Structures are given as C-alpha cells and as structure tokens.
C-alpha cells in the first residue's frame, strides 16, 4: 500500500509491501527492508544491523525515546505498480508530470506523435541542469499542456498520453 507520511512536517511518500523476508518499504522511491515485531508496549523494527524501538500514540511516534509528530494525510490506493509520476486517469491514459519544478526549454514531440517508452518528450531545465523527461510507456501524445520557455511546478501535467 502507499501512503503519505509526514514526520515533523517533512512529507514522505511511503510504499509498504509484505514479502517472505519481512516488510519491503520504499521511502521516496528508495528501498528499505525491515522486520517489525510487536511487543507489549512498542514495535521493534529491525533494519540491517539496527534495531529501533517505536511507540505509537496518537500523533506521536516515540523513536528510541525521542518524540516525533506524525501525520498520514493521504492514503493512496493499493495499486503499487502504477509507474512513478504517472497518474492513470483511465486505464489507457497517462499524465506526465515533471520530477521537479523548472523551466521547459524544449518540446520534442507533437500532439498526435507516437512515442516509444523512454523517448524524451520535453527537456526541463532546473538548477542549471537540463533534464530529459521520458515517456513512461509506448504511447500516443494526446495533449501537450506546456509551452517552451514556461516555468512549471512539479505537480503540473506536462503532457497526457494514450498508452498503446
């Protein structure tokens, strides 16, 4: 399952699956493996050689004795396989969002173009670096919603694609 976990004001995207060897977690896309056991008044989480004791109470998590404020403002659906940054409006449509805010410096496809998975759709400049934003799957470009030179935020839909 996926949910958003805010710890002391710092938001993180979390994905948890339960496998044969304990829990597999993804925190903002980075994988961690953990084993968690409930004890009388806490949960003991083992990660690698570390063992961390956690007590949950209301909006507090006491981690090895120090308190953190936690919130879960959003619980996403159980669909763990959805490609990163692509929201499926319907099963066959995909909306492409940039991985970070920046300025669109080049648009390399046109509406109606057929694109291959991994093909660069637009080039986004952020922090003096040019970043190519690829198509998440083989698709037809249905709509381009940005213009060259435009500044975009990270949640802005750059293009919508029909997956083929």
């Amino acid at each position, binding site marked *: *399952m996926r949910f958003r976990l805010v710890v002391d*004001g710092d938001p993180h995207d979390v994905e948890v699956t*339960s496998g044969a060897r304990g829990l597999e977690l993804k925190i903002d896309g980075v994988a961690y493996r953990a084993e968690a056991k409930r004890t009388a008044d806490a949960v003991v989480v083992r*990660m690698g050689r570390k063992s961390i004791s956690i007590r949950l109470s209301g909006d507090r998590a006491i981690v090895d004795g120090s308190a953190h404020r936690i919130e*879960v403002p959003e619980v996403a659906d159980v669909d763990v396989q959805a490609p990163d940054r692509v929201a499926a409006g319907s099963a066959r449509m995909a909306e492409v969002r940039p991985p970070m805010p*920046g*300025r669109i410096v080049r648009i390399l496809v046109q509406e109606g173009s057929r694109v291959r998975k991994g093909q660069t759709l637009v080039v986004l400049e952020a922090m003096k670096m040019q970043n190519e934003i690829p198509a998440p799957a083989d698709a037809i470009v249905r709509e381009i919603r940005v213009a060259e030179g435009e500044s975009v935020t990270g949640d802005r839909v750059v293009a919508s694609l029909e997956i083929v």
Partner: protein
Amino acid sequence: MFRRLLIANRGEIAIRVARTARQLGIHCIGVYSEADRTALHRLAMDESVDIGRAAPAQSYLNVEGILRAAEATAAEAIHPGYGFLSENPGFARRCEEEGIVFVGPPARALALSGDKIASRTAMREVGIPVTAGVDRVVRTVEDAEGLAAELGYPVLFKATAGGGGIGMSRVDRPEDLAAAFESAGSVARANFGNPDLLLEKYVRRARHVEVQVLLGEGGEGVGFVERECSVQRRHQKLVEETPSPAVTPALRRRLIEAAVRGLRAVGFRNAGTVEFLLHGGRFTFNEVNARLQVEHPITEIVTGVDLVHEQLRIAARDGLGVSQSELRSRGHAIECRINAEDPLRNFLPSPGRIVGYAEPRGPGLRVDSGVAAGSDVPPTYDSLVAKLVAHGRTRDTAIRRMQRAVDGFRIHGVRTTLPFHRALLREPAFARGALWTTMVADLRIVERLKSRGPWEETVAAIAAALAVQGRLAMGPALDLGRSSISRWALAGRQERFGGGGHAVSPRRRW
C-alpha cells in the same frame, strides 16, 4: 577601506562576503531577484535592492541593473562572489567606466583567463608545463580527427569559453569523435554563446590540484598550500581538501612558484586560482579561475587568512595583509559541498522548501550556508545550499570530524548530497588518500548507495511500525491494514485540521 559595498550575488557566498565586510565596518548592500524575496542572504545585509525577475539574465546577470542598484545606494565597490558576473570582463569594464571598484582582477586579465587557448599559450610562454593539446580552435571534424590521431586517444574537447565542467566531452575511440565534436560544440554555443572548441589529451587517473594566489596592486604575490579537488562527478567538484595527500614539500614549492609566476605574467591582480593536473609525479597547467572559489574556506581554515578581507584590501589599494614568508599552514581541512540534488536518483535537482534544518556543531567545524528552516531552494539557480568544512591536526582527524558532521547535518524537505558524502568518507580509497578525478564513477560510489540517511531510516521504521499495527487485516498479498491507518489518519485530521487536505507545517521542531 570602502565604506559601502554591493554584493552582487546570492546564497551562501553573498552571506560569506557580507560576514567579513560587516566585520570591517563596511555597509553591505545586497541584491535579490523575485525568487529570492525571502532569501536568507538578504538578512545578512544592511540593506538590499530588488534587481528584477527570477531568471538570472533579468537579475543577477543583468550588468546595467546591478550598476543602477550600486549607483542608487552609493556603493563604492562591487564584490561579485563566484559564478554570475564574477568572471565577466564586460562587467569589470563597465564598473570601471562608472567609477565603481570591481573586487576582482582587471578586465583584461579576466578576458585572458576566460579564453582557455589564450591562457594555455600565456602559461607556456613563461615556461609552465601545459597539458598536452592544441593551442588553436578545432574548426572541422576532419581537423579534429587529424589532431586526435597525433595526440593519441583518449582526447578531451573543451569549450574555449567554458567553465564549470560544461562543454567538456571525452572521446575514447576515433568512431565517437564526430558525434562528440558536434555535441560539445552545440553545448558550448548554448551555454557560452561561443561554439569554439579546443582539443586536449585526456589524462587518465589524474589528480586535480590547484593553488590559490593573491596578487596585490603592485604585483606582490602570495601562493597558498595546494587544494586537491579530485572528487568530482561529471567534472563538477564535490569534495575538496588541503593539503593534497599526494604533494611532497618539494612539489608544493614548484606548484606555488609556477602559479604565482603564471598569474603575475598575465597582469593578474586580486584573488585567483591556477588549476593543474597531477599525473605520474608531473603537473601540467589546466586553467585559471579568476575569482574567489567555492572551496576557499579550506584554505582560510588552515592558514587563518580571510581571503575576502584580502580581496577587499587589494581592491581598496590597502596592500596585502599577508606575505609569503609569514604564511603558515596548520593541519588538514576538507570541504563537502551540500547540493540540493538527490544522489539516489542520479543527482536529480531537488528544489523545494526546506522544512527542517540543523547544522552540526563541534570542534574544527565551519558551515557556510545559504539556507535555514523555511528557506526556498528555487529551481532557477545553482543547487549548492551549504558547504561543510572540517579541520583537524591530521587528515584522519579531519575525516572523522567530517563523518560525524555529515551524520549530524539535518536538511529536510529537499534531497541533498549528504548521503553521497557519507558513503565517500567510508570509502577505503578515500581514507588512504588515493584520489583521482573519475573515482566516483570508477568505484561506483553512487550506484552502491543504499540509504538516504538516518532520517529516512527513522521514517522507514515509523512506516514499518504503522504497517504492523494494522497488520491483522493484512493478507499475504497487499491488503495491509488500510482501514486502520485510514481511520487513524482521519482521526488525526479531524482533530488537527478539521478534515483539511494536505497539512504540512512549514517548520519542524527538534
């Protein structure tokens, strides 16, 4: 000394310059763009001036706009920091025309050091060994093929007007030459407005060492103990240290002598750095950086010399405050550049708002930072947010202090290069001082990164605890305690935010 100084930069370097200037009793005038209205550097100034839109060309790179700000605030001098207008001869010339002192080298020295071919030629003329290559612009692919065959592969294209590692392209095989020539040329045109390329022999397993130089108005000069900057990624420095673990006292004397002689010969003044490649016990000239460099604090911390103070003294014609004979260097210093980039996602830029921030403290540490809790890191500018410097009597002590400092540095809300530094500092080759410019790629340091750091591990542990709390409902597949977390989340929301949407408080407590 000046009474009023305009600092034409942003972020950590604007704050760094203001610290010294204010300590000298100088009234500091800052500048800021639309994107930096709430930026920390404004608070370091006595006053600050709005110079325009977020795009650099319309603010920090706008020569006339900055001169207008200087005029309006009666600034006597402008310190350009690094980047932006710091090495722009046109800007230095315009300052001169307006009767404002540019704190840096004269325009003609900037023009020369900004042209890689001209500076190679100038260094060769005064007997400094230069990295093998051709001292003219490569005109065509055929021309490049002939020259590369003479030099022997691998070769390196460089933009003659380039800098910051941009426009450099390594070619290992003749069949890749034409494509590299085209792409390096177009990158050079796009970034520097000049497609001209030169060709050098690519030196494998070289070290990057550089010598900081100060030259007074009369040409009196001081050269500092070398810095080694071999830890790079795509020709961008990530970690610097001084002294270099590879330089002997005899070699050090030759490096310093060559750097001072080379800059003096081209009429250089103020602070500059001469970069060399060190390979097989030999050194060859690479390029001149005609500005205060990002990594200048490591030199300051081992020598006790305030380089910004010296820059201001030279510009104000007060003479150098330090001489070669009295210069001493103590211990070892290392700098880690903390950039808003995610090393676990191929150093993808990570702009955003910093929601939590705490700097490490302790013996032998210095932090030059441009941000605090609540700061925005705009996507428009360079990704450097802070520089962490550790000093110790020995290199080992400096490394251990840096390890503790990296672990103790908390920056939440944007991803940073801290996990990279954590991994590098544990690398046996780094600990031995066996450094070379492609070591980050060759040792696959980034590819082997497993974790973003202790904070993310804490988050993962909390997530795991939440998951087992709702585990009763969790089958072997994915049906994990969703209802229990949702109810819990709902309760939390109702209590705190009356059912509102995303509730992210802007600051966190420690």
